[in-house]
């Protein structure tokens, strides 16, 4: 049975309570640093910050319905080699999943991090969020939360949370060391703090917070939210499969692609130092373009756009955790997340694998035997 | 072709027609048979059940007699049990170095000696290998076209001493039957035991085996055999077997030389067809006998 505590909210607002908790992590929790999203003073955006001074966490806002980037990449940078102290990182469930994938790919390490997760109600796209937040980001975050809790939903004016979030069946992380729970919790009174691992329990001990317990309604609340999202997700799979069911449709689907590679840069699990698409491999001879054009009379420029997405799917679909940063980053509004998650649902199911679920699960390609999938391999090794 | 002919007791009794037809058919095929002088019983299955040496001596006595005839001819035997017993002497003498001495010590009483110098052949062997079906075909006067013949070898013509055919899947009779223009009835029973040896002592057991054979022969026009015990067994017990099984299992049974004789145009008298017990009238009409 996991240990639970509570973060008192009474009399204060949610953000203040959370900020107090973060400060305590640094002060009482023996953390060397804290990675947490904060409103930056110069512009009203929320970015991950690495905080060592407890006083400098006062604009932290993990409630803001936005994540301009998947912070797993930042955690990877912090942990690729020993950093020399423990860091608490406050992440969304999808960020935790991405980080788990990166650790499996030897791009990071769990050794010196404490993963702190927040229940996630979804996020707006980067541009939408700026509009939504207006001048006071913190206030906007509370407004967003209020709307959700009150049943008004996540939509605001013509804005709504991103399709990736609508299709996300993991609003609560099961892999964090510490889970901050809001779903089904009386957040006017307190937030739930649940230690999911031994390291989490140790930390909880040190913080000396009042004991709490998981409210009865939490499970149901999570289930209800997940079931809505699964329904959305399955519809999305169906529509996307249909929209990309042959090569012509697929070409049309990806027709806007300009090879900016933003999606790849935004993708938390695309871990290559340098993508094959920017190496000499695709450095075609000028005469080659002409040859191709001659063969068909016309070719679309730039070339290799469909090929690019297919390659990325081949390399990464088994590791896709569905955060939607690819779509978020696309300048031409290609539904990249939709196709990625749709394909990933097939590839991951084929290997009975779920990206980001657990460190124990080896990535499919490391355990794949040539005798498997005899319909493809002939069944022999 | 000359042979020393050993008929054996059955051919003097229950198988008179086998004796007659053998002599007639072989004659018609140009083989010369000289009956073994003063032949005696081979010992049948009885001698072996009483005394091993006796079984050897009784059979060897006949071989010694044949050697005495000094004819440079093989001894030819139509009866499968006699064939087995005489052939066994040949075989055992080769395997057991002391046996010849013992046999001769006993035969001395009769003033005879056996030297292992005569070859024992079954009538079937002679028909197939010396006379050759191909040589019979041109001699056929009455074509037996359409006659379905169940060929029945029985055990002891084949086992353990058939050097001329397969022990398990015998085929040697087939070219003979075909040479006569008749058809071979497809069945699996040609080499199976008919139970004759048990008919007197374990009748119920024998009836089972006989019944199975007769049943499998249904569809054929007749059974042709080369063993007097089998022939007798198959024809004599058709009634009780039919009764026990509740179905009519009657079928004519002929000896091989009888069928050959018929085809060669020999008379039914020469072949003593009147002695067969199960020749139905329809069968006789068909072959106009």
């Amino acid at each position, binding site marked *: 049975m996991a240990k639970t505590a509570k973060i008192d909210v009474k009399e204060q607002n949610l953000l203040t309570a959370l900020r107090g908790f973060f400060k305590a992590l640094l002060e009482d929790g023996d953390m060397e640093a804290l990675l947490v999203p904060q409103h930056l003073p110069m512009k009203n955006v929320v970015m991950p910050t690495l905080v060592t001074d407890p006083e400098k966490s006062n604009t932290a806002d993990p409630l803001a319905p936005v994540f301009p980037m998947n912070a797993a990449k930042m955690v990877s940078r912090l942990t690729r080699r020993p950093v020399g102290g423990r860091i608490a990182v406050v992440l969304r469930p999808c960020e935790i999943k991405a980080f788990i994938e990166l650790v499996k*790919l030897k791009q990071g390490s769990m050794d010196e991090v404490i993963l702190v997760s927040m229940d996630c109600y979804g996020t707006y796209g980067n541009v939408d969020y700026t509009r939504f937040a207006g001048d006071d980001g913190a206030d906007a975050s509370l407004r967003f939360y209020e709307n959700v809790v009150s049943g008004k939903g996540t939509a605001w004016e013509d804005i709504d949370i991103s399709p990736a979030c609508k299709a996300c069946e993991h609003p609560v992380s099961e892999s964090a060391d510490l889970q901050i729970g809001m779903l089904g919790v009386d957040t006017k009174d307190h937030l739930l703090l649940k230690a999911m691992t031994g390291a989490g329990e140790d930390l909880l001990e040190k913080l000396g917070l009042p004991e709490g317990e998981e409210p009865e309604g939490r499970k149901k609340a999570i289930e209800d939210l997940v079931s809505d999202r699964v329904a959305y997700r399955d519809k999305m799979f169906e529509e996307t499969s249909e929209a990309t069911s042959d090569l012509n449709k697929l070409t049309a689907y990806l027709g806007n692609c300009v090879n900016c590679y933003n999606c790849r840069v935004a993708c938390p699990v695309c*871990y290559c130092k*340098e993508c094959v698409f920017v190496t000499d491999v695709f450095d075609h001879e000028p005469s080659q373009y002409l040859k191709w054009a001659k063969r068909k009379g016309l070719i679309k420029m730039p070339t290799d756009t469909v090929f690019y997405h297919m390659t990325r799917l081949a390399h990464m679909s088994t590791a896709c955790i569905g955060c939607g940063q690819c779509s978020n980053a696309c300048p031409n509004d290609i539904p990249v997340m939709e196709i990625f998650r749709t394909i990933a649902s097939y590839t991951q199911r084929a290997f009975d694998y779920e990206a980001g679920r657990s460190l124990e699960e080896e990535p499919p390609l490391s355990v794949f035997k040539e005798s498997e999938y005899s319909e493809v391999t002939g069944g022999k090794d | 072709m000359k042979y020393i002919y050993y008929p054996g007791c059955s051919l003097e009794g229950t198988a008179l027609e086998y004796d007659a037809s053998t002599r007639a058919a072989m004659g018609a095929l140009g083989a010369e048979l000289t009956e073994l002088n003063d032949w005696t019983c081979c010992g049948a299955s009885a001698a072996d059940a009483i005394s091993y040496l006796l079984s050897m001596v009784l059979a060897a006595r006949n071989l010694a007699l044949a050697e005495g005839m000094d004819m440079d001819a093989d001894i030819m035997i139509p009866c499968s049990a006699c064939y087995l017993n005489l052939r066994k002497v040949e075989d055992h003498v080769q395997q057991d170095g002391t046996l010849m001495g013992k046999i001769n010590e006993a035969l001395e009483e009769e003033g005879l000696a056996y030297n292992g110098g005569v070859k024992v052949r079954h009538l079937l062997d002679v028909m197939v290998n010396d006379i050759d079906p191909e040589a019979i075909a041109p001699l056929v006067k009455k074509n037996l076209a359409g006659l379905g013949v169940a060929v029945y070898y029985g055990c002891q013509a084949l086992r353990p001493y058939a050097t001329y055919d397969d022990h398990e899947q015998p085929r040697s009779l087939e070219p003979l039957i075909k040479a006569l223009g008749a058809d071979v009835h497809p069945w699996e029973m040609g080499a199976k035991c008919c139970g004759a040896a048990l008919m007197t002592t374990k009748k119920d057991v024998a009836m089972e085996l006989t019944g199975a054979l007769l049943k499998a022969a249904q569809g054929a026009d007749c059974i042709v055999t080369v063993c007097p015990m089998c022939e007798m067994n198959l024809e004599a017990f058709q009634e009780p077997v039919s009764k026990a099984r509740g179905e009519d299992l009657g079928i004519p049974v002929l000896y091989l030389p009888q069928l050959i004789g018929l085809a060669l145009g020999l008379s039914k008298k020469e072949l003593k067809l009147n002695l067969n017990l199960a020749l139905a009238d329809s069968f006789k009409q068909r072959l106009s006998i």
Partner: protein
Amino acid sequence: MKKKIGSTLVVGSGISGIRSALDMAEQGYQVTLIDKEPHLGGVLTQLDYQFPTDHCGMCKMLPLVERDSSSQYCLRKGLFHENIDIMLSTELVAMEGEPGKFQVTLRQKSSIVDQERCIGCGECARVCPVEAPDPFNGGLTDRKAIYLPVPHNIPNAYVVDLDACTHCGECEKICPTHAIDFGKEERKKFRILVVDDELIVRDSLKEWLLDEGFDVDMAESGTEALEKMSKEHFHLKLLDIKMPGMDGVEVLKRAKEIRPDLPVVMMTAYATVETAVEAMKIGAHDYLMKPFDPDNLIPLIVNLYHDIQSAGVKEMEVGSVILAGGFDSYDPSTGKDTYGYGLFPNVVTSLQFERMVSGTGPNQGKILRPSDGKEVKKIAWFQCVGSRDQQADADFCSSACCMFAIKEALLAKEKSEGQIDTTIFYMDMRTFGKDFQRYRDRAEKESGVHFERSRVHSVETTGKDDGTLRVAYADTTGTKHEEDFDLVVLAAGQRPPTGAEEVAETCGVVLNPWGFCQVEGFSLSRTSSEGVLVGGSFSGLRDISESVIQASSASLEASRLIHSKGGGLAEEVSPETGFRDVSREMPQVLAVLCKCGGTLSESADFDEISSWLEAQGSVTGVHAIDSLCTHEGWDELKETLQGNSANRILIASCMPYVYARKLRELGRSAELNPELMEVVDIRTLAFPGRDTEKEAVHQEVRAVLSMGIGKLKGMDPLPVATSRIVQKALVVGGGIAGMTAGLAIADHGFEVTLVEKAAELGGNARTLHRTIEGHSPQELLEESISKVEKHPLIRTHTGAKIIYSQGHVGNFSTSIEKEDGQGETLDHGVTVLATGGIEAKTESYSYGESEAILTQHDLEEKLAEGGVEPANLKTVAMIQCVDSREEPRNYCSRICCQSALKNALFFKKQNPETDIYIFYRDMMSYGFMETYYSEARKAGVIFVPYDVGQKPEVSVEDGRPRLSALDPILGREWLLEPDLLVLSTGVVPDAGREVAEQFGVEVNQDGFYQEAESKWRPVDFIKEGVFMCGLAHSPRSIAESVAMAEAAAQRALRILNSDRLASGSVVAEVRHSLCALCERCVAFCPYEARHHDEDEEMIVVNELMCQGCGSCAAVCPNSASVLRGYRDQQVFEVIDAALENVV
């Protein structure tokens, strides 16, 4: 590279022949590999699937180091190795000289078809009017008299079956490349002398022979014949035996004096056959039987003519001879054929069944009834057909059939998706090999193969003439059953190979009573004739892994002999070929087109193709040659290359595989790296008669040409990497296996360190006092220990242990702690692990509760000490498979049945009055061991089978064991109070797991060492440079351990033999700047050729171990891992070229 002076002849090219040949060749010897068949591969060419993987895997025998000296494609298709000369349709006909220096004479039959010219188009077979059963498909299908011996060979040339051929000449006429030559023109020059006193014989022979185009002369007497012979030249003499005056035999004797090489064929009537046979012994070539019928005689003489005229005779000197003639299968239609084989079409042999499931088989792998092509629903396998049957002259077990049957039953299940019902009828299921028992259990429990312990007596039809077979049998309880099957598969047993006696006589080796090669003492490869070794099934049928082991043991002995005769030390430095450095030049491709002797002209226009080629960017020259496969053509190419500035060569001809060896030669003469040459096949595309428009043909030809150009352009060969080798070996374990391996290596001149943990050398053999064959392990032990101790190159550490080992092939470093506690670090290039096994301990059957309850090992010791007095024993009981062949120790220990038989026979011999009972599950008296089982039965030992679910029960009362067990035949209980109860507890590995960890190698679930591949690489670990042998691999007899130790030494020697080893030209490399160190490639590499060097922070490739498979390149997402010669750009270009012409 170091080349040993010395050569070996390997007779027989089945797996064991190939293994021996490769062993010797890899070590640097020159090998001549011959086979009497027109194809390579022996029986393996017919078998597509091997237990336990249920596929082939033969290619895994190909060299892993120095691999570029050998072909690297499917070994069932073909093989070439720089050091191996392959001669097919060839027999060894004479051998003289002494070990180390034999003169051998080889005779190669003509195949009528010029193998170099034949392009395998099949026109000849299309027009051939003769159909003959195809032995490749076990006679289930027909082929023509001119045929492909194996459908998948490379190169695949036709051959003529002269026995079936009617010499009609149709094929000769139609052959587009004029590869077929029946020599009719040549016949005019072939002079035949007919010697007969009868005019009519002379005249008719003359007339017939003249009609056939021969030149004929006659002589009416021996005297005349001899006179003619001394004056004129003849090629063949037909000689009558019975002539007045000088008879034929006398003439023959004198003729042999005048013209010893003139082939003489005797003519004889029936009465003088024996004389003719005598004449053969004096040197007659053959004999013909009178009276003559021209229809039979003429083909005979024509065949003789081909035999004499076109057979190539080759004489050569070799240091040793390895006999690997394999085995023949028992023909179930011979003898008493109770199963109707040959009579019922649905009764087939296991080999025929294997063909039935093969994709190249009669129904492309569909299992259909031969009688009517209906789907098969029920199959029965009958074991021991022609084996374990004294009436078939076979008091032996054929060893491999049980596993073969299980494999086939599983194949039937797999092919039919479980729909086919399978039953195996057996007496003892002999699953005595490593992992066999679990395979059997899986077949039974998971796949539903039914096992019935019963020997079926005969097969019949149902009497309905529908092809269905009726099988009747009595089960163990005596109940009779009748069951119908669609197919009956007979496990036809082993017989010695045809010609075994002749080979044995030629080589002076002794055969065993069944006609197999007799092996000596504790060796499985030494024959009675020094210098002549035996490999594989010629000394008794073996499964693949045993054959491979024994073949390597034979090559080790062959090599040791050559070495001991002084043939092994000399070093021949192969001339370093300096290739032109073209790395800085722009690609300049010279395209060479072969016109295939004009055959292709009607379907393709070479001028048009040439001008298209000239227009291609990188092509700087185009050269057309009439026939590249002829010497003239090849010389023309060489000449063209002289002084040509082209730095890439594209050859457009046929059959690219054939060119590998030629290209290397061309590379040397043109000083151009052969990696920069590419052969593409345009002949298949442009061959006439494909019903394709010329333009379409051109399009396809252009596609393959541009693919070739694309590939060549991107080629950037680097100098081949070499690694330095520490030419020393470490052997861990000082038992028989370890000592044998150590001696074998040291005898080749390399330093060996032998580490044994016990205080004395000897291991298990110390406690063994006699083998079932009557050999003395103690003598072997003493001999081995004394040799080891005296050997100047062997250092022995007893009472020592391994502390730590690191490194990789060629460069290992291992620390040991010696008896005195001192540490020492050893550098070595190879490691042999021979850590042995021990008898398993048991608590079953009240062991330990009574002094009368012993293990087989205890008994052995007691007998040696005189602790047991056989004369006093009234009753002895033995229980087999104690704690074995069931989980968790679900394997057969292989030697316990032998021990039980040995001890039972010993007791019976000492005291025939002793009642001996052996309780067993399956008696594992495989191979010729069966004889001892028969002997034990005859001696009156009572064998009682028991089921694993109903084991004997043992209790102890007043210190005496009481045993009760069910006798399944009698259906009642045994109650015994034996004076001795002996338990066969089997073998467990001694130190396996621990040592394995230290050396970074794997063990299996039972703790035995895990070989790289159970069949094809039985003594290798996955980790290259580490080898295993002896009981640590799996339970085995002393002789089997010795063979395995020799095999391990052989594998080690091929590494130690050179001070440097070259990697292949196709190896992987890492572009570190791109590498994100995700280590996927490390996990994925099947050869453990990669590791993450944490200090350098990079992925490192061991080029010696890398086999260039490309798995790493495939798994790497951003091409940080690449394969030389297969770079992405290059591959893309080739793909583009291939797609270029897709409309």
